[in-house]
């Protein structure tokens, strides 16, 4: 199964943010989306999710345009993990995860026993089952990110799209989220995430797409796409490369 964008123009009715964009995400792979602030990453993400209509081109799942699908049909295919925020109401963690089951239930129905079992499995998988009855407002940022991941998993989607999943986390939780994204891909999901850190892309992604001023300037396997030259060009800033000769592991340092 693939999530594809072809010749996509993105933006708002009064402003074109990007055009001519091609994105392909296959099941079982992790794709990282990098680009400077204002390059159109978030707009592209929202267009792929069907939250914004494409100005031209189309988003396709297995060749079928997502604009023809209902919200619920789309939600059963693609899950969205937004940036962590403070919600207005103190729902218990379990309820937040159960909200991932909404697209599987009828208009007037509340979560069933099956939904609760799926949510419990998702919480267990991310090691947050002990938080089930805690208010979502009273847990840490790292825990909230895991709750949102569990909610996406409970949605039973084919693809998971994450908006800067590591942005507000401490070092340890960043690593945890990166390896959970790998685990999602290993279980057959297609995973797409945006990040400001090329090292996170190297660590978790199979492929990378570089976005600059609304245009794709490079696309391909992370080790080929993420080089000192492309990153310097992408961010218009000096970049240092560190290579461990034993393991051939590469990392980049800004400045």
């Amino acid at each position, binding site marked *: 199964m693939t999530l594809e964008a072809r010749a996509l123009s993105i933006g708002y009715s009064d402003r074109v943010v990007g055009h001519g964009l091609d994105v392909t995400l296959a099941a079982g792979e992790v794709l990282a989306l990098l680009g400077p602030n204002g390059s159109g990453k978030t707009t592209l993400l929202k267009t792929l999710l069907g939250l914004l209509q494409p100005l031209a081109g189309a988003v396709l799942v297995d060749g079928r345009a997502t604009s023809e699908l209902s919200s619920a049909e789309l939600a059963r295919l693609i899950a969205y993990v*937004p940036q962590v925020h403070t919600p207005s*109401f103190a729902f218990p963690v379990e309820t937040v995860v159960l909200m991932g089951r909404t697209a599987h239930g009828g208009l007037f129905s509340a979560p069933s026993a099956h939904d609760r079992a799926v949510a419990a499995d998702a919480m267990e998988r991310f090691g947050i089952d002990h938080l089930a009855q805690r208010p979502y407002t009273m847990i840490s940022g790292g825990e909230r990110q895991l709750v949102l991941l569990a909610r996406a998993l409970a949605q039973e989607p084919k693809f998971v799209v994450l908006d800067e999943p590591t942005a507000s986390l401490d070092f340890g939780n960043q690593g945890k989220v990166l390896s959970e994204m790998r685990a999602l891909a290993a279980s057959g999901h297609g995973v797409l995430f945006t990040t400001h850190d090329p090292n996170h892309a190297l660590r978790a992604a199979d492929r990378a797409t570089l976005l600059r001023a609304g245009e794709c300037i490079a696309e391909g396997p992370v080790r080929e796409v993420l080089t000192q030259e492309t990153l310097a060009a992408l961010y218009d800033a000096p970049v240092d490369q560190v290579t461990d000769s034993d393991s051939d592991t590469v990392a980049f340092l800004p400045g």
Partner: protein
Amino acid sequence: MTRPFLPGFLIALGILIAGLLVAFLVGRYPVSIAELLDVLWSRGTGRSSNVSPAVENVVLLVRGPRVVAALLVGAALAIAGTAFQGLFRNPLVSPDILGASSGAALGAVLGIFFSLGVLMIELFAFAGGLAAVAAVYLIGSMLRSRDPVLVLVLAGVVIGALLGAGVGLIKYLADPYNQLPAMTFWLLGSLAGTTVADLLPLLGPVLIGSAVLLALRWRMNVMSLPEEEARALGVATMPMRIAIVAAATLVTAASVATSGIIGWVGLVVPHLARSLVGPDFARLLPTAALLGGGYLLFIDTLARTIAPVEIPLGILTAVIGTPFFIWLLADMQKSWSS
């Protein structure tokens, strides 16, 4: 840990029962619990009662309709407030926010100005409330914005101000001896003139609107998330928002048409209910309904007993609501800064 459901629900039920007892028993003509039960029992079983006809009249004809109306109006305003606060993700929102109350006020004042009958006045209030919300919604959907909720709320404030000016103009033009007192009385809110005939036009819309909201309880949980998150979870947010606003407006307009404008109930009660049973609408809506009914029963009993003349309900709820609102604001400031 999150709050368990049953204790909070039982507290709300207890407050409602206490409110019912107080409303039936207290007043210029005191009734004992034994007399009350006797009257209700004989009424229910069809046997003749042992109490005097005067007591029977007080319970069934004088206080009865008023008690039922207070119960329904309080529950309706609380349910509408709960729905609006969830939908706008803002705990400071109340049924007045979309112009429902001010639209209903203008409708009713117009009805009084044209010397129409009571039923027509209620119909005008109802139409005014729905028209105001429709206007607010039309403005909100014409001004496309990244934050549609904020645009809706601001449109509600603007339309509310315009409708308020309309109410002012009609009061200015009204006959100061025959019409103006009726308008003022109505704008301040009262249940004093409630009769059995008023109850059916109130009960129908309140039941329909509440049933719709209760049926959508799970969707309302999801709708309290940011717009895009709710959509990504598979909720068609636009039709859902229209359905929730329509149901909550129906409930508000029906209660405003019966009792006049009683502010603050829809703001205060949802908070109390949330602190009892948490934010899940499946628990929150029934708890808020019980609590709102009990709350208005106490307020209405106060209104007719603490002074030789009846005190308008809107004034009592404002006296209680204002300090509550300030406390809420301070409390939220605290949680925003932490």
